């Protein structure tokens, strides 16, 4: 427990001092998105890594939070600080409602159903032009502000978003270590066994689904107020798949792994940009290579790699 706390403190200090390195440049902007993506990856990891339930529609919850916040503030003039929790509550209610029938499904049927859910949400964004602006987007969303200070620059958004991300990390770490976390892992390993032990597996799954959706919704609201513009294309099936990739590449069931996965997949395209048209090929190839050589994700693969490298030639074969 003590070790966990120290780890978190180090992480928080690193996060808060990182902007010193960025020097106000573009990288700061990229790390704002790393923060948002980390929140989303953790949200999906709670569901996938802890409870063992796949979702191919999480971009939908992200979009719902973003659009609800965006519309309430841009069209109806609400205060962002009010719009954000209201959106999250609405998304929670919706997730709860969908959760019961959808989580009855298993394996690829669950994948299919969540995929369908994501696509339906996407189509609604695209078609309700009067509210969302349709494919050409919703503009005029205000920045968040606090005590007269508007979060209108990268550095301000960086601290706002990373504060939220760190809170998410803290919440998830505590959750993993609580009675609920243990019950979840039991459900993950064997739902029937967990039920025999007196865990209300069904309710638990729905609750974690709703929690996961709420985190996505909050991340969505933050995204909306940072970007000040929304278009449906940011919330499609591709993004759901990207989130899934972040979680798996980072390491299933590991909170810091989700950060690593989110950071890697957000930064990678920036570095590949130099490769022009070849970037998509390299990106796909890297995904494959990493899955083959680091099947446990970065969070397990990197220490193994370091061990192998430091122990010299003898241990090299085990990496």
């Amino acid at each position, binding site marked *: 427990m003590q070790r966990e706390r120290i780890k978190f403190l180090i992480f928080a200090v690193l996060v808060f001092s990182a902007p010193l390195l960025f020097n106000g*440049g*573009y990288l700061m902007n990229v790390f704002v*998105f790393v923060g948002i993506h980390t929140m989303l990856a953790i949200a999906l990891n709670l569901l996938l890594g802890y409870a063992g339930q796949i979702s191919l529609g999480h971009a939908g919850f992200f979009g719902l939070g973003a659009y609800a916040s965006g519309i309430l503030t841009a069209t109806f003039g609400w205060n962002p600080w009010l719009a954000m929790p209201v959106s999250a509550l609405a998304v929670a209610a919706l997730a709860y409602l969908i959760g019961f029938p959808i989580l009855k499904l298993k394996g690829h049927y669950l994948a299919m159903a969540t995929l369908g859910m994501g696509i339906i949400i996407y189509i609604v964004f695209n078609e309700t032009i009067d509210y969302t602006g*349709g*494919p*050409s987007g919703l*503009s005029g969303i205000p920045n968040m502000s606090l005590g007269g200070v508007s979060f209108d620059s*990268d550095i301000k958004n960086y601290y706002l978003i990373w504060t939220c991300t760190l809170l998410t990390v803290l919440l998830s770490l505590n959750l993993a270590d609580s009675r609920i976390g243990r019950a979840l892992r039991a459900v993950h390993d064997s739902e029937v066994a967990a039920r025999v032990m007196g865990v209300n597996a069904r309710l638990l799954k729905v609750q974690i689904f709703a929690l996961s959706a709420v985190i996505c919704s909050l991340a969505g609201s933050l995204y909306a107020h940072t970007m000040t513009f929304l278009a449906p*294309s940011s919330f499609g099936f591709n993004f759901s798949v990207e989130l899934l990739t972040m979680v798996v590449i980072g390491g299933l069931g590991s909170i810091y792994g989700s950060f690593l996965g989110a950071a890697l997949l957000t930064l990678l395209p920036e570095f590949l940009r130099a490769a*022009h048209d070849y970037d998509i090929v390299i990106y796909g190839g890297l995904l494959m290579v990493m899955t083959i050589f680091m099947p446990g994700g970065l969070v397990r693969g990197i220490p193994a790699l370091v061990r192998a490298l430091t122990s010299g030639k003898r241990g090299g074969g085990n990496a």
Partner: protein
Amino acid sequence: MYVRLAALVAACVTTILASTVFAAAPIKIGGLFAVTGPAAFLGEPERNTAKMVIDEINKAGGVKGRKLELVAYDTAGDATKAVQLATKLIKDDKVVAIVGPSTTGESMAVIPIVEKEQIPLVALAAGSKITDPVKKWVFKTAQNDALAVGRIYEQLQKQKLAKVAILTVSDGFGSSGREQLKAQAAKYGITLVSDDTYGPKDTDMTAQLTKIRGSQAQALIVWGTNPGPAVIAKNARQLGLKLPLYMSHGVSSKKFIELAGDAAEGIRIPSGKVIVADLLPASDPQRKSLMAFVKDYQNHHKAEGDHFGGHAWDAVMLVKGAVERGAETPAAIRDQLEKTKGFSGIGGTFTYSSQDHAGLGKDAFVLVEIKNKDWVIVK
């Protein structure tokens, strides 16, 4: 291996030489093009053209002794990426003006940032709302879809076809067109009897067309970009739909004729003049620019220059014009852009003012018909 190494060294040396010989720092222009992704058909010719034009300008000695440098990024047609890359252009590359993005959605997305950072943006997308209402730092070169709609409606009015069906693609291009089609109908005494959409990746539109066949429509207007409209043309032929078929300027390229084949015959399209450059009278003010662009593009890319590339040509030339008139800072370039008068480019003859940042009139469009796999101007 050695050859490659030698080439690398040579490249390094040339870069170093180049940067020392021309002591005056180049003027950096940013480019945001959707080179990959669903809008690649826009972004690729745009990027190619922008590069080509800037190379030519530099070969001719640059602008007032200074070279231009294009810093181009691929937005993949994604609004989030476009915003990130606009930030990168402004913060890291310190460009004085930005050309692009390619689509209306992306353009709308980057407007807040260029307005805040005060960098002039010359968008290459068609959506009317990019410059309506006028934003201080935002200009555009692509002809407004409002003009294209007007051109079609004028023709329909002339032929007394008052009941019209519309079929638009559900992306930024289509929804912007649909908005204009609905908004302007009443002005031309036209009633829309059927209003349908299709998805950008849909492969069969017979259902929508069957519905339209069952309606009272006297003409059908399709608003989309390849390949959707080509599929629709083929579907319409399959169903034996006899309505006069109008399409948007989004398909006014040879590619469309190639894709739709025989089904393209008789389709009418409002188009920029670039595809009919050789049919224009010598007196046309755009003729010189058009011929130069078409020839250049043919030489460089072994392909026909289309009006998408033309948007980038216009944008770069407009910025060049501003720099020629003495502007070097973003603010001065913006002011000079706004003073552009009677510049005859590819998309039309541009005249910007503080009330108009789109700069084109109705004469930017001609109505063409496809006959024997080629374009004919409809009088």
